[in-house]
């Protein structure tokens, strides 16, 4: 495919679009970051390192905006509420049947 430099009046050129967010949006986003990673098993240290690492630009932006203290609070809350807890652990790798027995033989999910 030929590669042409975009011309200035090309309507299909990617342009940075800033869509303003309301005041609480950054904090809400940070809470979701923290909770999602906490659910996956990240501890306090690992979670904080995500916010400190500029490679994770969304989380890092939240740290710059909210400050260390607030992010620590968010992380603490996420780990203590939705973090990994004792739960049913099954070593059995057999897939769960997703269909009634008469349909299971035709279902890819049930194998």
């Amino acid at each position, binding site marked *: 495919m030929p590669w042409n430099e975009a011309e200035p009046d090309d309507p299909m050129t990617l342009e940075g679009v800033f869509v303003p967010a309301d005041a609480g*949006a950054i904090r809400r986003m940070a809470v979701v970051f923290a909770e999602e990673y906490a659910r996956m098993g990240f501890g306090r240290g690992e979670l904080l390192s995500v916010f400190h690492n500029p490679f994770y*630009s969304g989380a890092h932006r939240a740290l710059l905006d909210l400050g260390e203290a607030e992010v620590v609070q968010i992380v603490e809350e996420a780990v203590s509420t939705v973090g990994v807890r004792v739960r049913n652990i099954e070593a059995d790798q057999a897939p769960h049947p997703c269909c009634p027995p008469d349909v299971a033989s035709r279902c890819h999910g049930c194998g």
Partner: protein
Amino acid sequence: MPNVWNWQLGREMDYPYEGAYPRQQFAFVFNINRCIACQSCTMACKSTWTFSKGQEQMWWANVETKPFGGYPQHWDMKILKMLDEADPEGQAWDKEGVGHPKSPYGRFAGKTIFEAAKRTLKPDSARVLGYLPSDEEWNSPNLYEDNPVGEKGRKGEFHPTGERLPTHNTWFFYLARICNHCSYPACLAACPRQAIYKRPEDGIVLINQQECRGYRKCVEACPYKKSMYRGNTRVSEKCVACYPRVEGRDPESGGRPLETRCMAACIGHVRMQGLVKLNSDGTWAEDRYHPLYYLVHVAKVALPLYPQLGTGPNGFYIPPRWAPRPYLRQMFGPGVDEAIERYSNPDRELLAVLQLFRRSNQIIDRYAIEPGAKVWEAESNGIVRELYNDVVIAFGHDGKELFRTTVEEPLHVRDPKHANSI
């Protein structure tokens, strides 16, 4: 123009035809919070329905990145701008009747695409405000989305120190879309040949390929741009809601109604589709233990996409809880704040119903919950969160049990030897 009741707007609305409602309505709920834009749905649809010559740019199902992305590009911004120009500063909601089943989101005080057409379009025969996207807007379903472009002029290379570039004011989420099989389809309203019809048995909207002459009025009118023109056959095509599956005629189904291909392929447990019962005025009949009825009308966590357009879309979305609220209110209407609050702090029943997503390919007609033991409790922001390991049971259209599952999912530990293999 006749008046019809649009429950999503909480008021009567102009529509070119009298209201005519199916016995059941094809409907679906997408949970945006779970979508990672893997495009499994997109490819399931593509490989089933639109893999032929002339359909290369045709994606009945797609997932786009909001707020930047869109297929066709800028589809929603364009129609919203046209509506705003037709009714400057008037596109607002009031709280009249809010919470009532006939007006759950209040009353929309602005103009729909049918009402705005009367003010702006010439000739008078034009029925729906809309536009025809250009070829360029159709040709890249995910143009630039999620693709770092690297340094200018250096194709195929990431910026070597990209992670150290200034941070951006960025937020986004993924919006999965198919035809909404609307209660008041704009495509149907605009077709001069009456080639588009809504099936009385399930409300699926189809184009009669024998009758269509490819005038593209439906492409112009559908605000969601889910009617598409095929150049080599010179007729328009659209999502058919995998009707052989919904009818239970797919060989895999054993005669039971199956969810569509895009639903069944969703690995993220984002999607649930079903058939909801309707009242004679088009509102949803009370069906307390139907999962879609529960999510839309009881828990009120699932909201229609751009309800202000007036077509009565039957696709409902659980809004992303991290995105800025003004944008979400524009996209899903005034129910957004309540929906996110309930989804973020779910009660027992909502947690159980959320487990029904994608446990089976069969259409769920009813659910029941058997109480389980309390397995967890914690406090957050002064709110006590509890988790009960309830059992949720799904039943099919024939009343037979489809499956049962628990709220607390088992954690499977993969053998370290195969930790990263499939």
